[in-house]
């Protein structure tokens, strides 16, 4: 019995220790980012200087839109991509063997016709079933292929791409017209840039409270994650597990590392880690830039089942990626990647959720057995909730200064309310899901590959 008591207390204290550590890091990161944002307040006006929206000045970009059963939204996604403010680009829509009318809706709207294809398959992909084109839309190309998952679909787009840079954008993603222009600026001003990352977030945070309960919860969680991850990434070059979506890549480098990995979920993070590793092995000068002011918005999921499913898959994918790189941890050759990125992510994405989940069980046991006074337990919970609210509100403060005129006064009360509610129930559900994702990542991977 004594052993159980000691174990329960040890787990709880260890969790509190880690919680304190990560909370401290959160708060430090938010303060640091606040200072960076203040310093770079006028960066936007300087970027505008580089007037290269004309064809000659723009580095040509391929926009790859992978799609699978997205008939309802795909045409809007194509319109959005075709209307960006950029000098030289092509849009490659790759259908991953949809069962619905995705292909038909595109063919009808853009009057595309099947053409003979000669795609150079630098990265191995599933069989291409058809390539469609219309002289009316010379910068649009549609490809259909056998079903092979999102990674295989993007790889297909990379193979068809004719330009040195590419970006993969989901059919539901919404972004500003000049977002790609801003991402490409980093390649323009420094030739050693290999990836220029934007920020992928759930909807606009200022909409919080005006949408449903579940949507608001997702937005609150997302803004806290962004508020934390971006400064840490910028400060320590510690590439976080949500890095990669909405990023502009140097195509050649991506081809050199064999494109996206097809048997995992967190494909972007995996790709960025492999690019890092490859560049360190080649001992080449390179930079992966994070643009914390370039956003891409994804609509929130509508049902809790889908949210749980997504978190489960994402966590499984993250663990899968980290496990694949575990042999590189503390290898002096891989510098920051080995000594900060991987250990920190293992601690944050694997150890922390597990401890948090166990302490959910340990705390009631300690109270029931009278090993911890209920008032003490209550006090600990209150501190836990308060610290979480502080971090969430800190992230909102950061958002408020980095995205001018976004949060309206009427939204402030909803922000406070959802910052509180998110720590009661939603966060716990997500943590438990994450733990299941960690435990079943192998079986999930098998299923994904099949």
């Amino acid at each position, binding site marked *: 019995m004594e052993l159980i008591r000691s174990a329960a*207390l040890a787990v709880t204290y260890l969790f509190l220790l880690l919680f304190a550590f990560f909370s401290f890091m959160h708060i430090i990161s938010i303060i640091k980012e606040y200072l960076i944002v203040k310093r770079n307040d006028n960066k936007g006006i300087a970027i505008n200087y580089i007037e290269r929206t004309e064809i*000659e000045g723009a580095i040509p970009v391929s926009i790859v839109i992978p799609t699978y059963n997205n008939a309802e939204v795909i045409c809007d996604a194509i319109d959005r991509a075709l209307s960006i403010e950029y000098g030289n680009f092509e849009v490659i829509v790759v259908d991953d063997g949809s069962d619905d009318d995705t292909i038909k809706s595109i063919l009808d709207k853009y009057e595309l016709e099947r053409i003979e294809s000669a795609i150079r398959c630098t990265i191995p992909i599933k069989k291409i079933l058809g390539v469609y084109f219309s002289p009316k839309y010379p910068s649009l190309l549609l490809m259909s292929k056998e079903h092979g998952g999102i990674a295989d679909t993007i790889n297909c787009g990379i193979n068809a791409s004719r330009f040195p840079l590419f970006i993969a954008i989901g059919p539901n993603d919404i972004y500003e017209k000049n977002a790609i222009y801003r991402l490409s600026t980093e390649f323009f001003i420094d030739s050693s840039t290999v990836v220029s990352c934007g920020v992928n977030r759930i909807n606009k945070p200022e909409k919080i409270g005006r949408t449903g309960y579940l949507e608001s919860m997702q937005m609150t969680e997302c803004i806290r994650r962004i508020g934390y991850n971006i400064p840490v990434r910028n400060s320590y070059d510690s590439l976080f597990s949500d890095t990669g979506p909405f990023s502009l890549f140097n195509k050649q480098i991506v081809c050199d590392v064999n494109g996206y990995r097809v048997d995992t979920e967190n494909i972007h993070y995996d790709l960025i880690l492999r690019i890092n590793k490859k560049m360190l092995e080649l001992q080449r000068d390179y930079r992966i830039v994070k643009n914390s002011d370039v956003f891409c918005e994804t609509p929130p999921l509508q049902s809790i089942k889908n949210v749980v499913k997504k978190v489960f898959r994402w966590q499984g994918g993250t663990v899968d990626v980290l496990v694949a790189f575990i042999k590189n941890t503390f290898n002096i050759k891989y510098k920051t990647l080995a000594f900060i990125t991987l250990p920190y992510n293992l601690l944050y994405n694997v150890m922390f959720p597990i401890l948090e989940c166990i302490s959910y069980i340990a705390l009631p046991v300690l109270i029931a057995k009278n090993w911890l006074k209920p008032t003490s337990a209550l*006090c600990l919970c209150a501190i836990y909730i308060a610290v979480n609210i*502080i971090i969430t509100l800190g992230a909102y403060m950061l958002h408020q200064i980095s995205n001018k005129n976004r949060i309206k006064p009427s939204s*402030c009360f909803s922000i406070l309310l959802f910052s509180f509610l998110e720590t009661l129930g939603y966060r716990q559900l997500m943590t438990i899901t994450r733990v299941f994702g960690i435990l079943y990542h192998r079986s999930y991977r098998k299923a994904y590959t099949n």
Partner: protein
Amino acid sequence: MLLIFLDYSYSLSAMTFLATCVSDSVYLFRNKELISISLDWIDNCSLVVKMLSVFVSNILKIGNILLVIPGFIILFQFIWIFVRAIRQKNMQKKNIYSEKIIREAMSSILESDGGTARKTDLKRLKDALGSKQVFYDILSSEIFDYVERFDELSNSKKNLVSQIIEFVNPIAFYKRKLHAGDAYEKAHACKMLASYGAESEIKSIEKHLKSKNKYLSYSAAMALSKLGDKNNASQFILDSHDNFRVSHRFIIQLFDNYGDDVKGLAAVVLGECDDYIKATVIKAIAKYNFREFEDIYTESLKSENPTLRVAAITALGNFADAEHEQILINAFSDKEWIVRSAAVKALGLIDTPDSLAVVSRATSDPEWWVRYNAARTLVSMTNGLYEVESILSGYDDYAADATKYTLYRDYAAAIDPTDSNS
């Protein structure tokens, strides 16, 4: 290993626990006595847990404070977000209003007949501008719109635009920013001063060429280029490879921004630069077809650097002169596929029967990109379509594939889709 800990701090408890796992003997210094700790792991765990319990209970005694402090922090954060949201909302309204006033005042000044009304409008414009950069930018974009169509404007309107610039004096505002703003504001000021043609500020802009902030150093270089400062622009280009890791597109942009004497700037740079810069400069000036540099282009074909060879081939091809045909045909035998690909494109511009034969042969090149570019070039050449026909009916599947793709995609795009005859 012997470890001794002072027990006056509970925070050392966790360290004690770790120490028992790694050392042989651990002592705690408590009440001026050294107490040995048993090394049984389980016992130690209990001890450490006990110590941690004391530690936690002590913290909980001051729990009220710990809860009050976060409460105050949350309240502060909420008030901060709320107040800022209100301020931003008001500012947004004010900005929209001022922007409207600026645009209205501008058009009113240019449309009015003169007299007191114009003076009032000028004053109204100056008041609306205040000291905000965003308003000066709006005004400047309006002014540049008029300057762009300066030739179409009547003399009286030209005078009025000059009067506005004189009265409001945006140049003085950007000068202040150049001296007192942050790095990004300085970068922006460089741009605006160059757009206003403020040659008197060349010295001030020059100081920022070596700034650590890339946006500022690039903006300064671009501004100097726009103002026609040959010495500084050429020096920036020459230094760029070693100091700035600048992309070649930036240098191309710099040339595009340069005033009338692009040839002079190119001559200065080409005389002193290394192969990387030479390749970039040749790419940048290829479209101007400067005959003076033909020898440099031809000489560059002997370089070890494939990028330079590609640039030289592109520049020679742009002349579309049969005189260079043999050089380009020879370049097609290069071991690097990027050079062969460039040669194919260049030969396409020359468009003679000999070139056509080489381009046609290139559709069977071992490298996909060369085949693809050859097919693209072929369909744009005179009599190229006959060659295309024979490739499509021939035995070389690689060549046929590349040609079909080109025919469908690139060639079809070039044809007017509304033209039924095409």
